[in-house]
């Protein structure tokens, strides 16, 4: 009989949702066990997602900035790339951050178990440890934060030349020709990285636009930039076949603008979305139910259909974002500790870290129209922002979606350099129930990009300094 550990809370998966939950549980005085296959907490976000890609994108930005500097009279030599050092540096960042989380886990007296857990019943977990041992955990409550994994493209193909986001971040070499399948944020971010590092990148997307679901006016400046950076972008294009060759992958493409359907690429990056990790957890031994897409069904308190089990993060439904998972995890910790709270955000920000960045929160213009919500939309082009122009980044745009009657801010979308840093203000505005006037009357520092939010609000009120329009105000 394996060893049995008794605990109040067991958390499966130590990504941002799981460790956020476990840390909060411990802080609230609950006895907590955190289980993950990695040595330290971090999950996809730190090991294979947000953090390594951002480290790579930073490198990519430095290279493209240096190139762009030629426009304003500063010339650098062609960069020399030390791929091993780049990879080690990225790994260094990951190790630093995950190591820190390991420290925080210890300081909080959380029992961190490196292993793979599955349910025997609603309150019992079977854990296979990485060192081959086996143990059982008896928990009053279990929180599933098992995350998600890259979706497969058709049948699995065993070839080192077919990458997904997990493998693509460990850059071993720069492929000469790279095909990126999928025009979502992962494909665009990693495609940009490889392109600036020297690959000739071709991107195919099955729908008629990049970043489906995002307002088109936000995507357009990115499209224009990508057209310069990437070799080719093919929309409404299908990948019919992937066939590993001795060297590279033979690909068959089908689309209106495909002139050569059969092409050879050195590597292919599959980025066609992510799937929830809801299988292999022994959920059939519990009362947890899963929807047709594999997401665990939860209520607003993130309780599953089993009263002892909660689910948070990617495995409990979209948007699949680290910060959404963390917030859910912290909320669940409070619920387990006896507080009557719920996951009830009014806006969840999302950022695509391309160049330019795209960030949005709350209602999008498309959603407002499809839901028939009477809205007013205001756009402030960055060509009228002093700060944007000093950065030679006039292509940006800040837009606000507000309720037509109450002028309450319902959504915000930003495209441009550092859009991700700007969206926080708009998220707060929505959460606080701010109106256009509130934003317009808040002094923003000059010259900064944050002024575009203030001016966008002013624009709709006919009060923007740097946009002229005839107002309907009567004297």
């Amino acid at each position, binding site marked *: 009989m394996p060893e049995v550990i008794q605990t109040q809370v067991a958390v499966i998966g130590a990504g941002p949702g799981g460790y956020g939950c476990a840390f909060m549980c411990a802080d609230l005085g609950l006895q907590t066990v955190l289980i993950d296959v990695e040595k330290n907490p971090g999950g996809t976000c730190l090991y294979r997602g947000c953090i390594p890609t951002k480290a790579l994108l930073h490198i990519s930005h430095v290279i493209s900035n240096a190139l762009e500097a030629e426009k304003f009279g500063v010339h650098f030599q062609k960069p020399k790339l030390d791929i091993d050092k780049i990879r080690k540096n990225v790994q260094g960042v990951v190790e630093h951050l995950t190591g820190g989380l390991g420290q925080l886990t210890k300081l909080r007296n959380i029992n961190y178990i490196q292993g793979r857990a599955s349910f025997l019943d609603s309150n019992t977990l079977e854990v296979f440890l990485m060192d081959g041992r086996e143990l059982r955990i008896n928990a009053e409550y279990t929180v599933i934060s098992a995350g998600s994994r890259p979706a497969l493209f058709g049948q699995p193909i065993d070839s080192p030349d077919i990458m997904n986001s997990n493998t693509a971040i460990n850059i071993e070499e720069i492929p000469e020709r790279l095909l990126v399948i999928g025009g979502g944020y992962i494909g665009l971010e990693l495609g940009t990285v490889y392109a600036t590092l020297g690959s000739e990148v071709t991107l195919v997307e099955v729908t008629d636009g990049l970043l489906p679901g995002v307002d088109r006016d936000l995507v357009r400046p990115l499209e224009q930039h990508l057209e310069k950076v990437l070799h080719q972008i093919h929309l409404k294009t299908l990948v019919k076949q992937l066939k590993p060759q001795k060297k590279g992958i033979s690909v068959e493409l089908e689309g209106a603008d495909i002139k050569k359907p059969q092409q050879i690429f050195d590597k292919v990056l599959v980025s066609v979305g992510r799937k929830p990790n809801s299988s292999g957890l022994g959920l059939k031994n519990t009362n947890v139910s899963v929807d047709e897409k594999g997401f665990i069904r939860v209520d607003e308190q993130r309780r599953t259909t089993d009263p002892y089990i909660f689910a948070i993060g990617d495995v409990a439904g979209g948007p699949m974002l680290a910060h959404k998972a963390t917030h859910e995890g912290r909320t669940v910790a409070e619920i387990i500790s006896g507080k009557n709270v719920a996951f*009830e955000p009014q806006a969840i920000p999302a950022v695509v870290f391309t160049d330019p960045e795209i960030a949005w929160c709350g209602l999008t213009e498309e959603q407002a129209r499809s*839901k*028939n919500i009477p809205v007013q939309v205001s756009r402030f082009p960055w060509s*009228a922002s002093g700060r944007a122009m000093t950065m030679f980044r006039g292509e940006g745009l800040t837009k606000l979606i507000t309720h037509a009657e109450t002028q309450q801010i319902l959504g915000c979308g930003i495209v441009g350099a550092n859009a991700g840093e700007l969206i926080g203000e708009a998220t707060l505005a929505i959460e606080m*129930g701010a109106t256009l006037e509130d934003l317009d009357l808040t002094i923003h520092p000059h010259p900064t990009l944050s002024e575009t939010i203030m001016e966008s609000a002013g*624009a709709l009120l006919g009060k923007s300094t740097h946009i*002229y329009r*005839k107002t309907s105000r009567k004297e």
Partner: protein
Amino acid sequence: MPKEFRLPSLGENVAEATIGKILVKVGDTIRKGQTVLEIETDKAVAEIPSSLDGKILEIHVKEGQKVKPGILIFTIDEQTGVGTAPPEPVATPIVEKTPPLQKETPIPPVVEKPTPLRPTSISVGTGQKPKSDIPILAPPSVRRLARELGISLEDVPASDPSGKISAEDVMAYHKRKTEGIHVVESEIKHDIPASEIVEEVEGSSSRDSWGPIVIESMSTIRKKTAEQMMRSWSAPQVTHFDKANITQLEELREAWSKKIQSTGGRLSMLIFTLKVVAEALKKFPKFNASIDLEKEQIIYKKYYHIGVAVDTEYGLLVPVIRDVNKKSIKELSIELPQLAEKARQRKLALEELQGATFTISNLGGLGGIGFTPIVNAPQVAILGMSRSSMEPIYQNGTFVPQLMLPLSLSYDHRVIDGAESARFVRWICNALENPWNMFFE
């Protein structure tokens, strides 16, 4: 037929501008008023709306191009059937006259007010509830406060005219609600069992040593009923049972039922019982009294307000019918269903729950052969009605089927004795058996 969209005049003294951004591409279908491009002049940027509906055939300018008002921007295939465009104001060439200040600046307000795709479906009652998509105006800390207090933010009135709910608003609402309960409580001591109604707190799952449980806070009605029953229980009470032969009365009820229905009423056995009980209370004043033990007094009420217990999804409510003795059967058959409906919809006013001198609890509709109702203090008696049924009654040497109504009267023995109660109930039974008996008493 293709139409031309030209750059409109940009206002006084603006002779040249730069095309900032073209927001549409060839093949796009544009609507009148839709922003199609941005124009930059010196330090200002203007958005230019289309004055035409249609499909863009060709774009004649490029981003960054310097242009003058009047230049051809797009060629548009104006779709037939799409509202006829007014005479084109755009074809005006550069007008050099200086217009009166601001008056004619033809850059229309760029503010987009997108008309919802189906504007009519916004109105209430079409099944669309756009309101629910719009977040309630309250910061996260306030939303959390409300949840912890078990308050639905939709119920909280905002003191701010913008409709934004503050922590103070939530606290004030909470205070009003709890104070409201206090007011009612003091009333209840003299009067009614249950009054104000609040939301039932959502159940939260948990478990005890033996298995899963659900913990739910008591609703106000539940709390008040519990408190009132504890108070009532302190009176020593006895229940007396009897049966009324209502065979003839039932025939009478059936005969009049349609007629009463046509006046909007509902003639039930309870209506007759109300009327009979009011007469009985006149005959037996002790049953329409209350007791004051401190002063060692019995207070006889000279009004006949009868409470009727109503089962609602929120709990037991006892609305009161005033001056039953003064009301006709017809009036009562209209008033009672209305009161009961109001109780079910939680629309009773406080005074409609107060002032009863006697109570009737009718479980006849649900079944049962008898029960012991609890006297609703400070009243001293309560009459319970159970389900009437056909019974073999021995009459003139033979058994005849008769419709019998079981009655149970609980009474406060401090005021009323057994014999009095037997007489009281028998009087009621006799009156129900032969309603006209009442007129000769």
